[in-house]
């Protein structure tokens, strides 16, 4: 033999290691992870456009409430949409009088801290889903979702 068996084996091992060595370096590159979670309060769409008569009173009130109270106070409403957004959406869906009644009813439900998990579907980890469509008195719009169902993971 020209080459010793031991060297041949060693040569094979080295060549194998070189040929089949890991090539996907991308996986091991340095990364810059973001540890901040998205805050939907910061994504709020402030809107002062007047589309109906009630908007003249309601929109400034809602925007002022969002800017000075809600955004400063933080994400404390247990529901999605939040009570102020619920009120704004209620006006769009119905009228000022009905929306006010819907808001007072929502506020009552917001005050009651008991039995929420057994009553509402979940919206993410920290909120319960309670859309306006359930409360417009239009039975066709009621899309019942059972409690504990995740509307959004």
């Amino acid at each position, binding site marked *: 033999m020209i080459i010793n068996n031991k060297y041949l084996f060693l040569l094979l091992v080295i060549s194998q290691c070189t040929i089949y060595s890991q090539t996907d370096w991308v996986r091991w590159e340095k990364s810059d992870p973001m540890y901040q979670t998205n805050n939907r309060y910061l994504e709020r769409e402030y809107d002062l456009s007047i589309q109906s008569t009630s908007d003249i009173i309601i929109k400034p009130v809602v925007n002022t409430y969002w800017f000075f109270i809600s955004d400063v106070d933080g994400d404390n409403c247990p529901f999605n949409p939040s009570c102020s957004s619920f009120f704004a959406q209620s006006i769009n869906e119905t009228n000022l009088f009905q929306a006010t009644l819907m808001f007072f*009813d929502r506020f009552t439900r917001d005050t009651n801290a008991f039995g929420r998990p057994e009553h509402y579907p979940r919206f993410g980890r920290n909120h319960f889903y309670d859309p306006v469509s359930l409360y417009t008195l239009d*039975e066709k719009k009621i899309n019942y979702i059972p409690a504990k169902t995740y509307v959004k993971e």
Partner: protein
Amino acid sequence: MMFSLYCSIIFIASITFSQTIDFQSPQNIKLFADFLFCDKDYLRAIDEYEKYLTMVDDDSVRFKIAIGFSNMGDQYNAYQKLSLTKESSPFYEQSKIEMLKSLYLLNIDSSFYSSAEILINSESVYSNNAFRLKNTSLLLTDNELPEQKIFLIPFHNDEEYTLSNFYDLKKNPHYKSEIWAGVLSTIIPGSGKIYTGNYGDGITAFILTGLFGYLAYTNFKHDHQARAWIFTAVGAGFYLGNIYGSVVSAQIFNAKINFDFGEGVKFYLEEKNYFVPVYDFCK
């Protein structure tokens, strides 16, 4: 020297005993497809069956492809494949009831009911299955139900109890009256919510209305007019909002009743495999 000999033996042995199985023979393709089918890997099983059908004409494989699509929830393709079943096929009868199941799951009511009627009135061994599927599906529509005795005709004794329960619930659902909920909350704030089963909300509404009512009363009594009117407005808001909320609460309660009923019937149909036969392809 020994090393070279060892290498030579390995080299020769690997050539001599190398694999000679023809994986692409029709029998092996079918065996593999059957394995995938029984492993519930229907998508890949269908691919293999399709490959097999290019070589061999086989009615049972055609039927299995349709069942594969059906089991995957692709009722459209299942229906298309089943509709190609020839009258001479041993699976012709089964394909009819399977087509009916696909039509039901595709939510094509007009085709479903006309096909069901044809199958019920035919000489098919599955006409009773079609009758049962049609009657159960009627529970999920707004159509008028036939009389209970007529409705229960196609069902077996063990099914009658469940179906008569469903029938009763459909005829007399345990709804809550929206008007009564509103009236109750008008008399005693929160009682309408309690009537619809929302005890926490009912008690909260009672406390909030009572609290603001009391605050308004004491402020009027002590002649704090501005504060008194603010508390009156808020208290009135809670009072009226609760009456409104109680009516809505009854609507949501009724929607829940409908939802639970529908889910119950759907679950029953699933459990009964939509009254189609169970095939022992994997035994």
